[in-house]
């Protein structure tokens, strides 16, 4: 177990990869070891410099035509061979759906442990890695430790910050492009890209959340107006998507997890699954008719009242105050 050294990072998602390097470099510092970025794909050597600029001390490149399109088995076999040969102590992987499958299967092949969707990773005074994740539908946070190495964890998007890019950074590049790769066991017959909203809700500094307290879809215009004044975005709760079919995406544990500077919950009762998605907001304000609504326990500022009166009044008040300042 002691022979395992180094922190590794890999995600097929480029933005997430840079965030993993950000967290990885801090962890590597604490563990007094090196950070290695793993790059898999075809015709990717140009990107090596960027990974070094964002914190990697070393980049292992597997540049192979078989890796041009993401198929699990060739990617998995490359990662399996690399980890068996180089034995990292910690492997940070991206918590995309592809990444989670990859990580779990890599862990299975290495007979290793894997902690999915880590929200926090710390090194304690004994040098142990503590991995925290949400369980029980948002009711609890579990802290886990590994008994074996490598320690594989997956990390969701926008959980950690990437480092500032440093043009002058130097790093070692190891090219292992001539590995034998497994052939894919599944065949992709069709790919239909999803229209992704231009501005993602995770990036909004202000989010106005609307829940079942809104009676009609058209009523969201009062939330849209408030969001516009604050330069923010509107988010929805799951019932508006699943039951009423008004929207396609929701804020909550199973949907988008956000941490804006300000979250204003309008007509949201605050079930635990929703709260788990907004918990890390800096300031939470809640507007609700029901003083007993669980959201009140989660809010910094509470307004007990009718959102149909309060929200337009708040828009008006903010517009005036912001114009005069």
């Amino acid at each position, binding site marked *: 177990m002691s022979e395992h050294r180094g922190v590794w990072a890999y995600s097929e998602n480029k933005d997430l990869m840079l965030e993993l390097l950000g967290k990885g470099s801090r962890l590597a510092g604490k563990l007094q070891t090196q950070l290695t970025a793993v790059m898999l794909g075809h015709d990717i050597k140009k990107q090596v410099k960027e990974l070094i600029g964002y914190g990697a001390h070393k980049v292992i490149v597997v540049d192979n035509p078989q890796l041009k399109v993401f198929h699990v088995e060739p990617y998995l076999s490359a990662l399996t061979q690399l980890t068996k040969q180089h034995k990292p102590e910690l492997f940070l992987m991206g918590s995309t*759906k592809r990444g989670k499958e990859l990580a*779990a299967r890599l862990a299975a092949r290495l007979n290793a*442990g894997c902690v*999915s969707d880590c929200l926090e990773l710390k090194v304690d005074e004994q040098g142990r890695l503590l991995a925290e994740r949400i369980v029980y539908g*948002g009711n609890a946070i579990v802290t886990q430790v590994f008994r074996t190495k490598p320690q594989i964890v997956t990390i969701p998007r926008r959980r950690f910050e990437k480092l500032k890019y440093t043009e002058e950074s130097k790093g070692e590049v190891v090219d292992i492009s001539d590995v034998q790769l497994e052939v894919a066991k599944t065949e992709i017959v069709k790919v*239909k*890209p999803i229209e992704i909203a231009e501005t993602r809700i995770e990036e909004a500094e202000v989010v106005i959340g609307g829940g079942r307290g809104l009676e009609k879809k058209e009523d969201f215009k009062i939330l849209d107006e408030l969001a516009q004044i604050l330069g923010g975005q509107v988010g929805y709760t799951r019932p508006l998507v699943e039951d009423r079919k008004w929207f396609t995406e929701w804020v909550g544990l199973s949907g988008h997890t956000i941490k804006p500077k300000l979250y204003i919950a309008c007509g949201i009762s605050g079930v635990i699954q929703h709260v788990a998605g907004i918990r890390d907001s800096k300031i939470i304000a809640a507007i609700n008719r029901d003083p007993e609504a669980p959201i009140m326990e989660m809010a910094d500022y509470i*307004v007990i009242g009718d959102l149909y009166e309060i929200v337009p009044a708040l828009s008006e*008040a903010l517009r005036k105050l912001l114009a005069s300042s």
Partner: protein
Amino acid sequence: MVRILVCVKQAIDVSQLKVDSATRRLIIADAPKKISDFDKNALEEAIRIKEKLGGEVLTVTTGPEDAKTTLREALAMGADKAYLINDSIFENSDTLATSYVLAEAIKKIGAFDIILCGEASIDSFSAQIGPRLAERLGIPLITYARKLSLEGDTVTAERGLEDCSETVRAKMPVLVTVTKEINEPRTPSYMAIMKAFKKEIVIWKAADLNIPSEKVGEAGSAVQVLDVLAPKVERKKIVIKGETAMEIAEKLAKTLIQEGIIVR
């Protein structure tokens, strides 16, 4: 004729879980248990395939003795036979050890055309058992399926990924994990529930599967739980009051501006 196995988990009904606010501990012992939601989707899908093409649906779980209740529910939905893999030495197993127990059980139950799992369990949500099982059994895997169809020896599935929806094909035997969009699980009729009591639940202990104690439980796990706590809630909980909506709104607006969180 298709032989299908559905892996189910008896999960804690997270919507009914209570927290002791003084200690932030969960009151797990009192929490009701049920079949994990997505496993119900997996069962429903298996039963629909059987109704269409004929065959057999078996179901397996590993868990405490009262997981039999979960298996009865699966049998009431339409599974033909159930297996409970239960032994006190399995307690505190992580996904590494649990997938080992399930894989050993599946090898003993026999060969399958399709193994179905839910995408994740509602209580721990790690989404690892399906992928780990596919590796242990050495069969193709399709995760996050929201549509599934069979033709000859081939399974075609539509998967919902973050940036695209992907249609993939694999040859059977195959393991598929399903999402809740795939179907609406049925509610068993009274007759179906009564019939379920006549169906067989096979119980196997570790010894029946030649499972050594060092490969399961804490000893066989790579990950160990240090602590489970309800998240800390440190909020100001200030109620903003006033005579009129406008008065309240102005106070709230001023407060939010003073917080320095409004940039424009």
